[in-house]
């Protein structure tokens, strides 16, 4: 049985929920069982935002991710809060533009991505999240053209179709790192 548990975390406004939604949709398109659960309430307003995403071959039990296989930390408080929770052998993707400190854990794979800086340099300053998503897909062996296109079409409404291409660029940039 293959189950991947993701925890996306960062500041409100960094596209944390959106990144999670994209990963969930990509799983759905590939006939996996998926769930997406956000933190909600006042903490969303300018504070920390997080969401649990599970992608599995089996029906998803609890949708709450406590010990993620994959942690995305887009700010320091998120890394501080969740580093210790990552499953042994798991992965941490962090935005090294915003997090200076090293990861203490030795039993996890760490990917330091200067996502915010790269996003700014490449003309899509709000898409640091999707750069990280690209890197995750690459590392998990889930980077494939068809699935990406279909998932993007699901998470970006027709009204914002112009956003499709730039999101794709951000994902591709992440995957190339």
């Amino acid at each position, binding site marked *: 049985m293959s189950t991947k548990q993701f925890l996306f975390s960062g500041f409100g406004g960094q596209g944390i929920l959106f990144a999670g*939604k994209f990963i*969930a*949709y990509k799983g*759905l*398109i590939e*006939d996996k*069982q*998926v*769930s*997406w*659960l*956000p933190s*909600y*309430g*006042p903490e969303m307003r300018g504070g920390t935002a997080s969401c649990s995403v599970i992608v599995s071959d089996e029906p*998803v*039990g*609890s*949708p*709450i991710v*406590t010990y993620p296989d994959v942690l995305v930390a887009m700010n320091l408080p998120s890394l501080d809060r969740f580093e210790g929770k990552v499953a042994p052998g798991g992965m941490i993707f962090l935005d090294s533009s915003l997090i200076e400190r090293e990861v203490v854990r030795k039993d996890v794979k760490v990917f330091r991505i200067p996502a915010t800086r790269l996003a700014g340099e490449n003309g899509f300053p709000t898409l640091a999240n999707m750069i990280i998503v690209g890197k995750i897909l690459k590392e998990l062996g889930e980077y494939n053209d068809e699935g990406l296109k279909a998932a993007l079409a*699901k998470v970006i409404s027709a009204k914002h179709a112009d956003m499709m291409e730039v999101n794709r660029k951000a994902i591709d940039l992440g995957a190339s790192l």
Partner: protein
Amino acid sequence: MADKVLMKGNEAIAEAAIKAGCRHYFGYPITPQTEVAAYMAKRMPKIGGTFLQAESEIAAINMVYGVASAGLRVMTSSSSPGISLKGEGISYLAGADLPALVVNVQRGGPGLGGIQPSQSDYFQSTRGGGHGDYHMIVLAPSSVQEMAELTVKAFELADKYRMTSMVLADGTMGQMMEPVDLNFDVAPAPEKPWATTGTEMKRKHNIVNSLSLVPEELEKLNIARFERYELVKKNETMYEEYMMDDADIAIAAFGIAARVSKNAVNEARKRGIKAGLIRPITLWPFPDAPFKKAATHVKQIISVELNMGQMIEDVRLASECKVPVTLCNRVGGMIPSPEQVLDAIVKASK
């Protein structure tokens, strides 16, 4: 997958209600169910329906009472504190034998409490919630797909038995997204000759009413209502059993607690402990049968709840106290972890 979309539980309820033919929604903003109202506000005007943000929860439930009197499928949704305010109206709906749907996406209480998930309105929902002798049909979804399907079911049952149905969810179920397939059949609403739609000068006037000042008559009305409730118990009780056939330890859990418990049951089985799960889908009527049966072969039943122990009373009644029933819980917006439930199972197995 072609037909499946990712939806929040709250949105799934709203879209399913529309599929069920509900064209009138009245509500008041409260976390964590506001997406239902927001979704309805967007959709209803486009399909010739009515979305109205009421001045209060009390007004909302009474608007529901009005549309239900007119014989149409109608709903409101709220979260725990708002449901208390609706209690009066729900009692009147029961007294006037009106079909309607009330959705409660529960949060921690009492009082203003918090906004995180809870199951602490179990007593309120299953015992009625307002004043007087009555019940609602209470349906407890444990997936977004069920949020949709049980919403439709709730409308059908409400019409069939002239009762208020409640979909009793919680913050997690409302906020989470899962794939949903909305291609399911909906039974058309039955004829409602009792509805107040105007006499057209062709019949005697219809009266929708819950007042009955003659005790002998009010007694009869109550007894007749409870005879109808017996039919609901007989025909509509729903539950899921998971790995119960050879179970030594049974978990009783509904909604989000059942999902957490399923993880724990799977883990226990890996460790050679024969655990199983009974998940009530109707909380009223409560599924007595699987607990009665379980009591003949399990050592212990563990009631996993997001409250201080409410359903546990029904589990004890249903299992006739033949085996110990213990509580495994978190409250105040906390959710038991699979590990906590597993610990309880391991402890019970020793």
